[in-house]
């Protein structure tokens, strides 16, 4: 196949891939990328192969202008994401316009650049690992295209006929609307130049460049490119510690976790598959993964008040400065496990009074690896990441220690800690908080109150025992009440006059976790049990490849916590909770997330696990590569493994200090930020300098390498033959300006010295040279005595030479 045809196809593939990359990020409008892909392939057939139709240059310009105008209307009103999408669309329009032009070098260049721009935009729109895969495919296509394009350019340059054809395409008449099959102009009939030279392309051109060897070349190129990409990407120092804010990416979808619950919205809630975080449990000692037998409850925020007017549960909690402190150190004799949370960069963190809300199993403790910015509001029981405002630095990952409690009951209990000096008594602050959780509107929720009473009475429990009452109510929801779980709230069956929670409890008894939790919390309060709603995530998909829970928005969950005083706790655990404990109650009937565990072991799930793991890796080591991670994950291990064994001389720290000092001495302050802008610039500079050094050393080697190598070989030679003494002799003489010419034999050399040296010196030299000859050419081995004799003579010579210096010169 002709090179040009191959190029046309390859460009079309490239265009299609670029459009697909864009499509990957722009989920809401898949039609345009598909159109672009179609256009790419149609254009190959229609415009390039058959030449039925092609856009004239002017027409193409008009079309391009139209596309720009059309896109601008999209561009202005939107936010940054929409703007990007508008750009993406524009790029696709332009690409289509270009594809239907007759291709010249100019058009090919435009297509290549457009395609690259598409990838740049796509990189901003699509953060998934799928982008990575697409990028690799794109890279191969791009390399193929570039290679073919190069061949095409070279052939056009060399071959006059091709060049004429090519120029004819570029200079087509302005007002021909549709280009027909235009004949190749052969304007070169009359030659008036003095010397006319003409070369033709080789006949094997097409076969050579469409052969499998070319494919091998491209593959090699691809491999080199991949390696270079990885090396460069990880070696290039990042200027800042910040993560990419994700400002360009699409906003958070309106599903999943929210920091309040309102029940006035009806309709279907979509189960969002979007990743929230990945949580791994590891032993703090051995760092081996641990899988919890119980589904972990990742606590988010705590809702303490039900607003009847808006029918929503909200947080009306005034920050408690005393209670909100750093995480406590782990208590001694409790087994701990490290919880490692890696947040999806697109997860928008909720604001709390202390900063960004964090999700974690509660309670949490710290150790030396835990960030000191994590704040534990112990009264309400939630973690925050200290930040001054919503725009403050968002953590990408954090780790805390959590108690390892495989036992069911212990897992459900959360100790209430007293801040009083007497740890067995509740302090006033806690007491008032508990009081606030009991408050109910006595005159509201008549039917709810009635139901509650019925439930408690019908349950065969001690009504004075809060623990039993709470459990009875929980049972009511999960087993006895005939509740069903649904995400679809049909507005038609709702009673608009009733409060949604009451309606849920009394009438239709179907809803999602928020309804269950909301209703139960109210019921508990009417039983004068302090209760609150905890919103967070329950469980997640366990990824057996990376040993972590992939927590998605669909795992969002709400549950209830009830305060149980010490006296009501079961006897087995009573001593551990001197001031009572929070009991976690999950009223939602199970069955929503179990699906995940059923399919374990299947090929598909394994593959999905892998994919998700890759996604995590992609996110961790590509999308969120920052200076901190770079240092921790790449430079440090690298330095430890490679630099440390080299010893103190090549100490990383010392170098760092040295560079810092040097920089300070020239007035550049590198601060504590080792990977600052300066470092980035320095790296670029060093790369350029390194390249320069490489080039100059190459030149140097070419220029001086041969003599240098010869010199080295000579040195080795002398040593190998054991004739260093002669070398010594020559050196000593050379120091006095008596050098042996390369064409001189040692005898001749010594002979030539006769006029300049004293007879004593000559007598000393002669046996040395003779010995040298015997050893070097005769293969003799000198005895110890002979060697010492030579030593003596050399000293004699030295003395003579020294005298030569001292003696007056005439």
């Amino acid at each position: 196949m002709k090179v040009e045809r191959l190029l046309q196809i390859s460009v079309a593939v490239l265009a299609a891939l670029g459009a697909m990359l864009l499509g990957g990020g722009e989920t809401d409008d898949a039609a345009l990328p598909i159109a672009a892909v179609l256009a790419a392939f149609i254009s190959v057939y229609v415009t390039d192969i058959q030449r039925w139709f092609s856009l004239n240059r002017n027409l193409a310009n008009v079309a391009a202008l139209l596309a720009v105008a059309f896109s601008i209307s999209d561009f202005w009103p939107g936010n940054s994401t929409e703007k990007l999408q508008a750009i993406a669309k524009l790029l696709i329009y332009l690409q289509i316009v270009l594809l239907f032009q007759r291709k010249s070098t100019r058009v090919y260049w435009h297509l290549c650049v457009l395609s690259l721009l598409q990838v740049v935009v796509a990189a901003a729109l699509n953060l998934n690992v799928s982008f990575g895969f697409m990028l690799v495919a794109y890279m191969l296509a791009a390399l193929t295209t570039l290679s073919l394009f190069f061949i095409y350019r070279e052939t056009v340059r060399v071959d006059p006929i091709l060049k004429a054809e090519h120029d004819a395409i570029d200079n087509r008449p302005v007002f021909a609307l549709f280009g027909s099959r235009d004949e190749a102009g052969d304007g070169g009939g009359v030659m008036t130049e003095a010397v006319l030279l003409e070369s033709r392309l080789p006949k094997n051109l097409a076969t050579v460049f469409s052969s499998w060897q070319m494919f091998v070349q491209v593959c090699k190129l691809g491999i080199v490119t991949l390696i270079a990409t990885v090396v460069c990407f990880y070696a290039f120092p990042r200027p800042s510690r910040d993560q990419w804010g994700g400002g360009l990416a699409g906003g958070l979808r309106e599903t999943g976790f929210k920091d309040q619950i309102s029940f006035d919205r009806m309709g279907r809630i979509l189960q969002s598959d979007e990743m929230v975080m990945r949580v791994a449990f590891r032993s703090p000692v051995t760092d081996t993964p641990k899988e919890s037998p119980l589904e972990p409850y990742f606590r988010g925020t705590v809702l303490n008040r039900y607003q009847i007017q808006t029918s929503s549960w909200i947080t009306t909690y005034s920050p408690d400065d005393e209670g909100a402190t750093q995480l406590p150190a782990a208590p001694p004799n409790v087994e701990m496990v490290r919880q490692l949370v890696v947040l999806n960069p697109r997860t928008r963190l909720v604001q709390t009074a202390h900063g960004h809300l964090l999700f974690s199993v509660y309670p949490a403790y710290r150790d030396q690896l835990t960030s000191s910015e994590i704040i534990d509001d112990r009264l309400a029981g939630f973690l925050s990441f200290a930040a001054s405002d919503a725009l403050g630095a968002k953590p990408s990952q954090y780790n805390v220690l959590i108690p390892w409690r495989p036992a069911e009951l212990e897992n459900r209990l959360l100790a209430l800690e007293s801040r009083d000096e007497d740890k067995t008594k509740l302090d006033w602050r806690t007491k008032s908080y508990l009081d606030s959780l009991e408050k109910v509107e006595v005159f509201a929720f008549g039917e709810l109150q009635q139901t509650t009473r019925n439930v408690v009475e019908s349950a065969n429990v001690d009504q004075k025992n809060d623990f039993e009452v709470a459990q009875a109510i929980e049972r009511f929801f999960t087993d006895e009440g005939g509740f069903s779980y649904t995400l679809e709230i049909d507005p038609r069956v709702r009673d608009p006059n009733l409060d949604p929670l009451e309606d849920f409890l009394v009438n239709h008894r179907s809803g999602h976790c928020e309804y269950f939790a909301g209703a139960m919390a109210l019921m508990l309060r009417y039983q004068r049990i302090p209760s609150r709603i905890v919103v967070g995530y329950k469980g997640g998909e366990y990824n057996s490849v990376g040993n972590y829970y992939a927590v998605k928005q669909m795992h969002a969950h709400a549950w209830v916590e009830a305060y149980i005083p010490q006296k009501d706790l079961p006897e087995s655990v009573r001593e551990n909770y001197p001031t009572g404990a929070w009991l976690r109650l999950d009223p939602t009937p199970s069955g929503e997330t179990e699906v995940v565990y059923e399919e374990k072991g299947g090929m598909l799930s394994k593959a999905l696990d892998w994919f998700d793991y890759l996604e995590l890796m992609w996110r961790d080591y590509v999308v969120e590569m920052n200076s901190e991670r770079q240092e921790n994950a790449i430079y440090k291990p690298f330095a430890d493994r490679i630099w440390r064994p080299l010893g103190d001389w090549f100490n990383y720290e010392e170098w760092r200090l040295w560079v810092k000092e040097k920089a300070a001495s020239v007035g550049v302050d590198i601060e504590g930020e080792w990977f600052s802008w300066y470092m980035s610039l320095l790296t670029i500079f060093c790369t350029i300098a390194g390249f320069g050094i490489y080039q100059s050393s190459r030149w140097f080697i070419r220029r001086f390498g041969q003599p240098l190598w010869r010199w080295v070989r000579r040195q080795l030679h002398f040593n190998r033959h054991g004739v260093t003494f002669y070398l010594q002799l020559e050196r000593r003489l050379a120091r006095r300006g008596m050098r042996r010419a390369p064409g001189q034999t040692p005898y001749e050399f010594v002979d030539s010295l006769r006029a300049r040296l004293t007879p004593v010196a000559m007598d000393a030299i002669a046996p040395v040279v003779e010995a040298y000859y015997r050893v070097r050419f005769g293969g003799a081995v000198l005895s110890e005595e002979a060697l010492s004799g030579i030593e003596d003579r050399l000293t004699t010579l030295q003395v003579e030479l020294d005298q030569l210096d001292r003696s007056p010169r005439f």
Partner: protein
Amino acid sequence: MPAELTSLVAELENSISRVVLGKSEVVRKCLITLLAGEHLLLEDVPGVGKTLVGKALARSLDGDFCRLQFTPDLLPSDIVGSNVFNTKTHEFVFHRGPIFANIVIADEINRTSPRTQSALLEAMSDNQVSVDGVTHDLPTPFMVIATQNPFEFEGTYPLPESQLDRFLMRISMGYPDRAAERQILESHRRGEPVTELTPVLHSDQIKQLQAAVREIEMNDSIHEYLLDIIEATRDTDDLQVGASTRAAISLYRAAQSLAMIEGREFVVPDDVKQLAVSVLAHRVIPKGYLHAGQREAVETIVSRIVDEVAVPT
């Protein structure tokens, strides 16, 4: 190498030097050629003792010696001999020519016709002669010392380069210095001193010596050095034709012989360097056509080339 052989060489050298005065260089090269088992070309004006060298060598050896005066009318059969019909036995009998000797002095070799020259040169290269299809071996050792006067042109047939190659060395005698010349006059007061020489070496001993020469060791680096020199003659711009492989072999052998004469068991770079000019100069062709000064010019070129080649250390 047995010490007596070395002493024999020394003795031989002394013997010749007693007659050929002030020409130790020539004598030594003569011996080198002998030990290498090759042939020598002496070039110079008449009367500086070219023939004397040959005679002295021949006398010092216990072998046959023959002297051929080459003239334009000399025929090949005059040298190698011919088949003569014996009327009594009715068969052809080969009458050996004068070339069947250990030492042959071919005087004025360039005066004879190329045909005769090539007959001699063939004998030199093969150590045998063929007459009427019958091959006759020449005695060993066999050495030709040819002389020619390079300054004569009229009526001469200069040896072509390909044939010059057969001689190991081409050396010129040069005039002896004043002291030596006085000595020569002294020694000639009572007639030719050559006649007083007595043989010091037997031809078998020569053979032994020649065998011993081949045992002389040569270090790899000297091999390289030698080849460097040969290569340099081929690379240089001044020479049209560089030294041949045969030249390399000759230089190799000559260096070995010199080491032998100097009583060493190994070759040193000095051996190669000293002999390079004598061995190589007549085997290369310079660029341009330099008539009379050609010889000197070539020797200068070769010695410059040799000086430029780095000596192994």
